[in-house]
């Protein structure tokens, strides 16, 4: 079998997703037997010009949000050359944390960047930023998504196997495929490509795979994590913490909530949820243990930065109001 030609790139992001490509245990030593990585600035030190030397690619992993002109150019060029374009991580899939910049009206600091920059040649300039941060699918056509911040190891491993035709032992495969929807899991096991546009994640909410005990949800105060965590194994939302599992796609296996950390929503919204913010408003409000307008108001005043919390990883692509305001209806 010939080696697959691959490109891996991070646009505006933290490069942790690129690390997860290497986080596949012992299989990492076999990576070079199946992959011929032609473009990977992070590990191989490739320059942007190196893209021009590539004729075609079997698949590309694109991580990070599209925030600058160069992010967009690389996205377009990789799309042209790749048979399969895959987003890896919440930033490329949904816009991610860099997307929160959309909450501010932006302008470039003129003295540092842009065409009319006044600066000596010796000072490097910042790249020009786009008016709005975008997820990759808002810029080019995307074939598959691997969400997460960063994506969990089993999902990356499943994706690598799906695209490389790398057949590993059955036990490895079942572990990787166990959290995926049946259509994807079966495709990987039988060695064909999963249906186009599928997401390497589950279909339900994180609560479906969370191990905590869910009872009646009632609390009368909003708390931060450090103020109120009891290691009782009870649902974190019931304990008065903002856990976004209910508005977040499953696939991680509830690892954060299992360790006692409220879900932050890095897998984006599940298909059944219309708007994650609205879902969280509904979920949190239903737990308020009071009926008087004054008391409810007092609790609500304690919440800070609802947008940054509910849309932490997906503001540019999954916040319906912002999408409408952008004109992407």
């Amino acid at each position, binding site marked *: 079998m010939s080696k697959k030609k691959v490109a891996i790139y991070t646009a505006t992001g933290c490069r942790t997703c690129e690390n997860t490509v290497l986080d596949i245990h012992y299989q990492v030593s076999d990576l070079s037997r199946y992959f011929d990585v032609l473009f990977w600035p992070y590990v191989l030190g490739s320059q942007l010009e190196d893209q021009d030397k590539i004729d075609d690619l079997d698949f590309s992993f694109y991580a990070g949000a599209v925030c600058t002109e160069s992010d967009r150019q690389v996205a377009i060029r990789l799309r042209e050359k790749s048979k399969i374009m895959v987003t890896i991580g919440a930033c490329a899939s949904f816009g991610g944390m860099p997307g929160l910049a959309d909450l501010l009206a932006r302008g470039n600091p003129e003295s540092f960047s842009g065409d009319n920059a006044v600066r000596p040649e010796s000072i490097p300039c910042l790249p020009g930023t786009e008016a709005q941060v975008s997820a990759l699918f808002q810029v080019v056509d995307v074939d598959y998504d691997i969400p997460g911040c960063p994506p969990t190891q089993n999902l990356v491993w499943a994706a690598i196997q799906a695209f490389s035709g790398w057949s590993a032992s059955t036990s490895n495969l079942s572990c990787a495929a166990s959290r995926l929807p049946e259509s994807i899991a079966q495709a990987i096991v039988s060695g064909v490509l999963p249906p186009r546009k599928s997401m390497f994640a589950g279909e339900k909410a994180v609560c479906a795979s969370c191990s905590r005990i869910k009872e009646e949800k009632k609390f009368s105060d909003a708390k931060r994590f450090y103020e109120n965590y009891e290691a009782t194994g009870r649902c974190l939302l019931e304990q008065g913490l903002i856990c976004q599992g209910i508005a977040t796609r499953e696939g991680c296996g509830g690892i954060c909530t299992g360790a006692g950390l409220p879900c932050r929503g890095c897998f984006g919204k599940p298909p059944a949820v219309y*708007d994650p913010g609205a879902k969280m408003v509904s979920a949190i*409000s239903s737990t308020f243990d009071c*009926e008087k307008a004054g008391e409810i108001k007092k609790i609500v005043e304690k*919440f800070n930065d609802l947008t940054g919390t509910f849309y932490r990883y997906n503001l540019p692509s999954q916040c319906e109001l912002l999408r409408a305001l952008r004109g992407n209806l």
Partner: protein
Amino acid sequence: MNQFEPKIIAFLCNWCSYVAADAAGVSRFKQAPNIRAIRVFCSGMVDPGYVIKAFASGADAVLVAGCHTGDCHYISGNIKALRRSFLLDKLLTELGVEKGRFRLEWIAASESPRYAEVVNEIASEVKKLGPFLPSLASH
């Protein structure tokens, strides 16, 4: 120049506010013609998603109207609507929806004058605020 005519989505509870709206029409109270009424069984079933979807689809204001406290046909549905309204209002404000575009009101079946009053208030307020999504205003 054409005057801006806002689109106002009103979620009216079947047992109180919808009856009031009906009676307001029958009684020929003067009301702004900007309301698009959606009859729901209870104000408690109006998910925050419905409100956000209304705004995202081009509504300029959203009114949720239900029974007074203690009068709910389903015992406490209107309390559920009340609980959600504050957090929803806060989220909408953060996302750039001005105060006055989202409103929760209690209108009993017998309060048709009150219904007409609320409708007129919202319409005049939103006319001052202008369209929520300028690009959709012409539709």
